[in-house]
């Protein structure tokens, strides 16, 4: 198509063709991936908590270009239509921003959101002590800001971090990671470009300290031995991720305590002075 210069008189701008995802021929060379990682290495992980002030708990997780925000509201009273229940209910809703994914129309996006929500609910439910929350509902909202691969795993990790930040009683943190089988090699935490060329993929969510698996989803085609190896790789990845999640929570709590101590030391008028005190430092 000849690129016609946009003039003031033209009624419609010329449509821009969709850029397909780049499909490099070789993803792994000499045990190093395209982005410089080793086969069993995570992307650069950044975790943060309490990013949404109105929520009971919230978290942000960024694995390079995969960016997810999670918020937990509640517990609140359950809707009447669900009737009485002596255990609580986890209501998980997930959405992708309209610019999160390259491919797929509205309908495909809605289907993906539904699938992600049910996958997250299964991953998180075993970790929450719902017996302590009769007749109640916990709302977990997850927003995928940018989908750069393994978004379900990153979303589960962020959601669990948000639950912990909300002070919900948990049996353990849920850490989740994906593994892709790309031409016989197992890649931990695949990027979108790697996942697009996988022969088999799996998502594993686990509570590493309890040693329990909360969600497993496999797709594609796995050789008998490779599946086992991949599971073990993913379990190791989850344990590693959990350590990072724990550090994030501890650091955030330590920072808050320090803040409180500083506020107390000022002896000022009390409430509302937190932000100002920080500014004076």
């Amino acid at each position, binding site marked *: 198509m000849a690129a016609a210069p946009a003039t003031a008189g033209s009624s419609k701008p010329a449509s821009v063709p969709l850029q397909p995802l780049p499909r490099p021929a070789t993803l792994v060379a000499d045990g190093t991936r395209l982005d410089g990682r080793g086969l069993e290495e995570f992307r650069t992980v950044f975790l943060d908590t309490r990013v949404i002030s109105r929520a009971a708990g919230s978290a942000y997780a960024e694995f390079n270009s995969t960016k997810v925000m999670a918020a937990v509201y509640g517990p609140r009273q359950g809707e009447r239509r669900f009737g009485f229940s002596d255990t609580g209910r986890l209501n998980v809703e997930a959405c992708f921003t309209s610019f999160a994914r390259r491919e797929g129309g509205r309908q495909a996006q809605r289907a993906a959101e539904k699938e992600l929500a049910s996958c997250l609910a299964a991953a998180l439910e075993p970790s929450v002590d719902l017996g302590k929350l009769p007749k109640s509902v916990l709302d977990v909202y997850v927003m995928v800001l940018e989908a750069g691969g393994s978004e379900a795993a990153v979303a589960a990790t962020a959601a669990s971090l948000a639950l912990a930040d909300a002070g919900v009683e948990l049996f353990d943190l849920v850490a989740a990671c994906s593994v892709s089988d790309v031409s016989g090699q197992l890649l931990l935490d695949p990027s979108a470009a790697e996942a697009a060329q996988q022969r088999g993929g799996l998502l594993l969510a686990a509570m590493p300290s309890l040693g329990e698996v909360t969600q497993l*989803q496999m797709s*594609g085609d796995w050789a008998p031995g490779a599946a*086992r190896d991949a599971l073990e790789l993913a379990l190791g990845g989850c344990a590693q991720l959990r350590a990072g999640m724990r550090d994030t929570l501890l650091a955030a709590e330590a920072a808050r305590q320090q803040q409180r101590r500083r506020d107390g030391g000022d002896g000022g008028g009390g409430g509302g002075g937190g932000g100002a005190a920080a500014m004076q430092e």
Partner: protein
Amino acid sequence: MQADISDAEKLYIAQGVAQGVRNDGRGCHDARPLELELGVVAQANGSARLHVGATDVMVGVKVSLVSPDAAEPAKGQVFATVECSSCASPEFKGRGGEDWGIDMAAALQSALQSSLDLGSLVVLAGKTVWAVHLDCLVLNDGGGVLGALSVAARAALAVTRLPKVEVTMGEGDDDEPEIELGDDSEGTPMGVTRVPVIVSVAQIGSRCVVDPSAEEEPCASAVLHFAVGPGGRLGAATKTGAGGIPQPALLEMLEAAQQLGPKVLRELDGFLAASAAAASARAA
């Protein structure tokens, strides 16, 4: 789906499983025997009805010529639907079975899409391909429905013949090619060797049992469904149930599925070969 059983019954089943005994006399790694009928629906291109214990399912395969998906012009199409008869379980009344049916249909469809040779379903590149419609009906839910559906689906696909097609190209460039359908009986079979069966493994207490019955399903804290192909190759896997699975148990469940899957496939293929031989002997 959940059978309506009391807590005392659940405890009885769970304690039995803890000692390696199941309420129907099976061992933990034994599946129920399969009872298969082929060609039960005259209108379908291939069909099968399967009894596994109390579970009763029916699968019909219909093929039709359609224009291919714009994104994948060189691939045939596979669609699966699962209908849960409201007679099968009280939970299916009204629209109760719909969501469950949709989940199972998605599992079957993805298993078939990755195992059938979709390239061989192309009739005229970019213009016409075969669409394979798999219509599944759950007549009775006695546990392990997804597994039963996958076995019946493989059987129904194995007896399906794609009708012979004759394509006559038009004279000019603009003429649409003419497609003529032949008779069903002289059609070509579809390649189903890689189509997996789905094996369900349930975690009850600290042990796992394969092919759970309707009474065992509500006792399970979690159930893993593995699609297992020949030689123990794994396809999709999903988890249902609200409990966690201890890590060593996960690997044990994987192994149990990888052992049972090829066994079921061998049994099924033996039956299909025997019935095909019987049919050709009748014809001769």
